[in-house]
């Protein structure tokens, strides 16, 4: 098996950006899964795209907008039902530690 396209250090970097605390076996597993994705993307590179304009969207459409009108919100209780923890009407999260 060839060496994966992504290094262990890169896996650690993106995990840190995503605030994920991965164990050593998880890092290894992620490394191979990410490698599989990159290998798949490589297949696309074989296509000849010389005459194709780069685009960010699959459909040629612009200016989809809405008028500035207020619509009903989700009731607070329903919204908080999705929160891992709550305190009063707030969502409670662990304190943030800056690096």
């Amino acid at each position, binding site marked *: 098996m060839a060496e994966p396209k992504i290094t262990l250090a890169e896996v650690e*970097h993106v995990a*840190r*950006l*995503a*605030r994920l605390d991965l164990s050593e076996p998880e890092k290894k597993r992620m490394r191979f899964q990410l490698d599989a994705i990159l290998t798949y993307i490589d297949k696309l590179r074989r296509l000849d795209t010389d005459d194709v304009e780069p685009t*960010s*969207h699959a*459909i040629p*459409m*612009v*200016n*989809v*907008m*809405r*008028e*500035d*009108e*207020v*619509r*009903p*919100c*989700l009731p*607070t209780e329903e*919204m*908080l039902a*999705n929160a891992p923890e709550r*305190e*009063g*009407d*707030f*969502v*409670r*999260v*662990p*304190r*943030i530690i*800056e*690096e």
Partner: protein
Amino acid sequence: MSRAADYEDVIGLEVHAQLLTRSKMFCGCPTTFGGAPNSQTCPICQGMPGVLPVINRRAVEFAMRTALALHCTINSGCRFARKHYYYPDMPKNYQISQYEEPLAVEGWLEIEVGGQVKRIGIQRVHLEEDVGKLVHEGTLETARASLVDFNRSGVPLMEIVSKPDIRSPEEAAVYFKALRAILIYLGVCDGNMEEGSLRCDTNVSIRPRGSSELGTKVEVKNLNSFKNVQQATAYEGERQRMAITSGQTIVQETRLWEADRSYTLSMRSKEYAHDYRYFPEPDLVPLKVEQRWADQLRTTLPELPVERQRRFVSQYGLPAYDADLLTQSRALADYYEAAVREYPKPKVVSNWVMSELLRELLGDDEAAISKSPIPPRNLARLLALIEDGTISGKIAKDVFEKMYRSGEDAETIVRREGLVQVADAGALGAVVGQVLASNPGAVEDWKKGKKQSLGFLVGQVMKATQGKANPALVNQLLLERLPKEP
């Protein structure tokens, strides 16, 4: 060894303005400030899987108006992008913003510092969404948990980035002030810094005077007043001067301004904070701004503060100081002009607005002016009463205060309280006679050439008439009866 004075400041400001739309940037939740926590959210602004954001047309138009007022080029095509970072104030773990293709670029704003007009370049104007608000349990150092309110999450935010053209903390404050005035004139932002509708970050670096290279810049966040912008920028420039002249190097970082203790504090290393992995927002198709759309918006731009200030000088002959102060807020300038239309003595109106009205009002913004118990017409009528001799200038100040407390007009108060000026030579003559008789000392002084005693005698007559005597007439009557000057 280099000296601190050999270095100049290079400053750029990033200003975030909440737009005065009714609904959020990409969903229909209201943008009202002060609602109960988490009462203004929906699956879209909470970033639930599968939802589709849709762009608020008014937010785009507000940003375009601003861009036009700042002489920017509006890009014919622009795109939204996802800016990824993980922080609990943002449920999607990305903020929808603009990156490589912002709405507008390359403009300028004119400021005046120390009598010199200077152009500060605008690098870009772009649209994004605001994030939620974190409240810490206890102090930041000891907190075990944070509480999140997502009401603000998704509120339209416009970012205006200046070029590093600012050269002093004072210029920074003046620029921020001028920009705020423009946003308020345009009606796109309320400019309320306490509520966080307008926020500012400053980027500071220093370099040897005469150099054209840029030094390592430090970003200072959390500036919510003109004073904070000026102080934080000054502090950061000094900190860097001291570091460099003592042989240290500046690290590129983000620092937080601690207003209570007046210093900047390192926040986090930029190395990680800036790895945002932007990519085009797949859920939003690009915006294409037709020239016609921009042209149409251009015709709706109001007269802006600088233009209005210049007009106040040329049309009303006001000193630059008055014109500047009166045009800081659109509402105040409107008030002034309405009063001048009714009482066409511009400098007199200006004096009354600046000294009397602004002393009573809590601010000069729309809300404060609209609540003024003295409408422009009533101020004009009061000034007319002084001019036609009905009341004296001194009495007028009391009448003004009474008008302010009661909301009544000047005539009503003057009539009810019998404040009409005594301008009848016969009636005043009697009082003048009494005053002369009971103040022989002052009369002696006058004979000896002490001219100040005339002022004293006028004062005595005013006192005897409870300020209602016409001062010019009193003067005249006294001079008639006092011996001619030696």
